[in-house]
């Protein structure tokens, strides 16, 4: 690791001041410390936010929930209200990482984890995300785990989070605090940025802006599911994952929320796939139309071509199970 300074302010103001001065926030540290060991990340100052509260899951007036940014992934997955009303979120969290990591990893940090692209991790390789302008070794390289939607000619890395995929389907909002001005409420759909020409910029967060909570609106109608397809049965990142909530009345789909992991540089919500389902009889024709709509713009990079077929089959299987 490169040398760094470490501070642990015990107020939000103190944390924001240290962040405004260029400090890097650290919560669980499971991803950041790993990347610091490899010198992929080399912060000059670590601002430990563990001195803040932000560890509660509170009920909101509209019936939703506000999840403090420091709630560990393990606690969030096991929280009775999450299990009861947002089971896809419990399932997504439980499908991610290991028990040890879920005890450490925070809700806010999970949203900000970096890609597991091997070239991003390998400092000797070209990577526009790590070293802007150096190129992308994944394009034309080994790209079995890479994205098929939303990529650019600068970057084809995927976002690794399971939790964020469920939160995207649940229409979560990221609540922030900012130095010297009011915080923001950022819908998760506006939170991530596609790589374009600047894959090093992954979210709309400003320098020093701190995630303090993630708010969930009341749960969507219908049944929920999170399905993750991966190389091992446990403790592996998604090749394809689906977070879905579907409601059916008299055999007709009345509501659908569909978000996907492993396919894109951000948790990928497909309004097109949802539109292909709603108002149609819950059956193979509508499910296939939804898959067509999801994957209309997909293209593989060689080793990851299989993901397009896998996503199609996984989505159709999920829809069958949810509407059975």
């Amino acid at each position, binding site marked *: *690791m490169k*040398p*760094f*300074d*470490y501070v642990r302010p015990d107020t939000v103001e103190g944390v924001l001041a240290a962040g405004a001065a260029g400090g890097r926030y*650290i919560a669980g*540290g*499971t991803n950041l*410390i*790993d990347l610091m*060991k490899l010198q992929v990340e080399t912060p000059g100052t*670590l601002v*430990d936010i*563990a001195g803040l509260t932000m560890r509660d899951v509170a009920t909101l007036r509209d019936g939703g929930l506000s999840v403090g940014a420091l709630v560990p992934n*393990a606690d969030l*997955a*096991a929280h009775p209200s999450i*299990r*009861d009303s947002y*089971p896809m979120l*419990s*399932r997504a969290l*439980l*499908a991610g*990482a*290991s*028990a*040890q*990591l879920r*005890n*450490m990893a925070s809700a806010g940090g999970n949203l900000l984890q970096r890609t597991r692209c091997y070239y991003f991790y390998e400092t000797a390789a070209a990577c526009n995300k790590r070293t802007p302008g150096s190129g992308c070794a994944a394009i034309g390289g080994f790209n079995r785990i890479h994205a098929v939607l939303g990529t650019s000619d600068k970057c084809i890395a995927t976002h690794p989070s399971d939790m964020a995929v469920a939160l995207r389907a649940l229409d979560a909002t990221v609540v922030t605090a900012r130095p010297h001005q009011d915080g923001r409420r950022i819908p998760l759909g506006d939170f991530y940025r596609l790589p374009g020409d600047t894959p090093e910029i992954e979210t709309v967060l400003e320098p020093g802006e701190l995630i303090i909570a993630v708010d969930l609106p009341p749960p969507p109608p219908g049944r929920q599911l999170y399905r993750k397809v991966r190389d091992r*049965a*446990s*403790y592996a990142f998604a090749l394809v994952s689906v977070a879905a909530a579907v409601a059916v009345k008299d055999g007709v789909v009345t509501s659908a929320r569909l978000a996907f992991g492993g396919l894109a540089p951000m948790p990928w919500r497909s309004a097109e796939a949802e539109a292909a389902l709603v108002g149609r009889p819950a059956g193979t024709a509508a499910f296939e139309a939804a898959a067509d709509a999801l994957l209309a713009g997909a293209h593989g990079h060689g080793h990851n071509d299989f993901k397009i077929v896998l996503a199609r089959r996984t989505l159709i299987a999920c829809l069958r199970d949810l509407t059975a």
Partner: protein
Amino acid sequence: MRVTVNGEKREVEADIRTTLLDLLREHLGLTGAKKGCDHGQCGACTVLVNGRRINACLSLAVMHEGDQVVTIEGLGTPGALSPLQDAFVRHDGFQCGYCTPGQVCSATAMLDEVAKGWPSHVSDDLDHVALTDAEIRERMSGNICRCSAYPTIVAAIREVAEGRAAEAAE
């Protein structure tokens, strides 16, 4: 840095970059927790912090000022093994033994998680958890055994879990 390890308050001068794992092994002489991958992938470094299992390699020691850390040395001694240590010995839940301290610390916390009713990825019902072998395997997936002693590791954990369930039923 001031950390409480196995019930003892320790004060240590160390580089700010020191991980909790290196603090335990290199500064405090507690070499039970092992360094396997040093990237949070193998679980050999698993210790308990405030009663919860974590990867000590992915945490800076300075982040644990004021925390209660328990290592394998704090769970039992050769003369007074913890129930899981004893079960691992009787079931031969290892071959080389390198992953064992992490396995035992991890299993210790895992049984507490089950007692709290925490579900896992393989739980059919998020609200009612029965500790089947599939549950034990999933919940222990953060601890890798390169000798593949998994069947006997599962047997050791199952025996302790069943013993506790029987006690609770009495």
